C-alpha cells in the first residue's frame, strides 16, 4: 500500500513541478529539502538496522551479496550496451539523428 501512495505523491509532484520551472528560489528549497529528507531517512534506516541484531550479525554476508549483485547489474548492463551500441549507434553520431 505504501508504495502506491508513494507513486501517487511522486506523480503529483512531477505534475506540480511544471509550475516551479521558472522559480529558481523555490527549486533550491525543494532540492535542499530532498537532501535533508535523505539524510533523515538514512539516519533512521541506520538506527533500525543497528537495533536489529540479526542484521548486524550477518553484515559481512550482506556486503558479500551486495558486491556480487553490483557486478551482475553492471556486467549485464554493459554487455547488453555493447550489443545495442554495435547494432544501432556505431555507424553514426547521435547528434546527427
Amino acid at each position: 500500500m505504501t508504495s502506491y501512495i508513494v507513486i501517487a505523491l511522486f506523480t503529483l509532484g512531477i505534475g506540480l513541478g511544471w509550475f516551479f520551472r521558472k522559480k529558481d528560489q523555490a527549486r533550491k528549497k525543494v532540492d535542499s529539502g530532498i537532501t535533508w529528507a535523505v539524510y533523515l531517512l538514512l539516519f533512521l534506516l541506520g538506527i533500525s538496522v543497528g537495533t536489529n541484531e540479526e542484521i548486524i550479525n550477518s553484515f559481512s554476508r550482506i556486503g558479500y551479496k551486495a558486491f556480487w549483485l553490483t557486478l551482475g547489474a553492471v556486467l549485464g548492463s554493459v554487455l547488453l550496451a555493447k550489443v545495442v551500441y554495435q547494432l544501432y549507434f556505431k555507424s553514426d553520431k547521435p547528434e546527427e539523428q
Partner: protein
Amino acid sequence: MKGSLIILSFFAVGLIGGIYNVFPQWLLNDNLTTYALFVLMFLVGISIGSDKAAFYVLRKMNFKIVLVPLTVIVGSLLGTALISLLLSDIKVKEAMAVGAGFGYYSLSSIFISEISGKELGVVALLSNIFREILTLLAVPLLVKYFGKLAGIASGGATAMDTTLPVIVKFTGKEYGIIAIFSGIVLTILVPILLTLILEVF
C-alpha cells in the same frame, strides 16, 4: 562522491547509535520513516518536474535514445537475476529489486526496506553505492571493452548527475544528452519498477 560519503555517515551514525541504544524510543517508530518517505518522494517529483532538462529530453526522444535506458533495465535485471541463482540466500525478485535501484541508492534502499524489510534495504544501499563508485572508477575501461554506451549503462540513474562528468570525459560530449536522458528515465522508473517487482509479481 562527497555526497555519498555524507549520506553514508548519516547511516553510520544511526547504525552505531542504534547498536549502543543511545536513541529515544520514538525515533524507532516506523511511521516516522513512512511519512518522511512520502515527503521525500513528493519533493523528488517536484524536482524532476521542474527540471528544464527533463522537457528538453522529452523533445529529443526517439527510438534509439529510448533503447539506452531500456538496455540498462534489461541488463541490470537479467544480471542480478542470474547472480541470485549463484547466491543461496536471496530470492530472484529480491535480487532484481536491488538491481532496479540503478545506482540510486538513497531512494531504492529506503523504498526496499519499507516493502521488503531492513536487511534487503541494506543490501540495496551497499550494492547501489558500489555501482556508483565502480562506475566512477571503471568508465575508461568499460568504454574501451564495451563501447561508448558502457559508461551510461554502468552509471544507470546516476548518469544524469554524479557520474555524468566522467561519462562525458571518456565518451564525448555528444553522449552527454543520452546520459542525461537515460538517467532521468531510470530515476523516474525506480519507484515504479520496485513496486512492480516486489508487490505485483
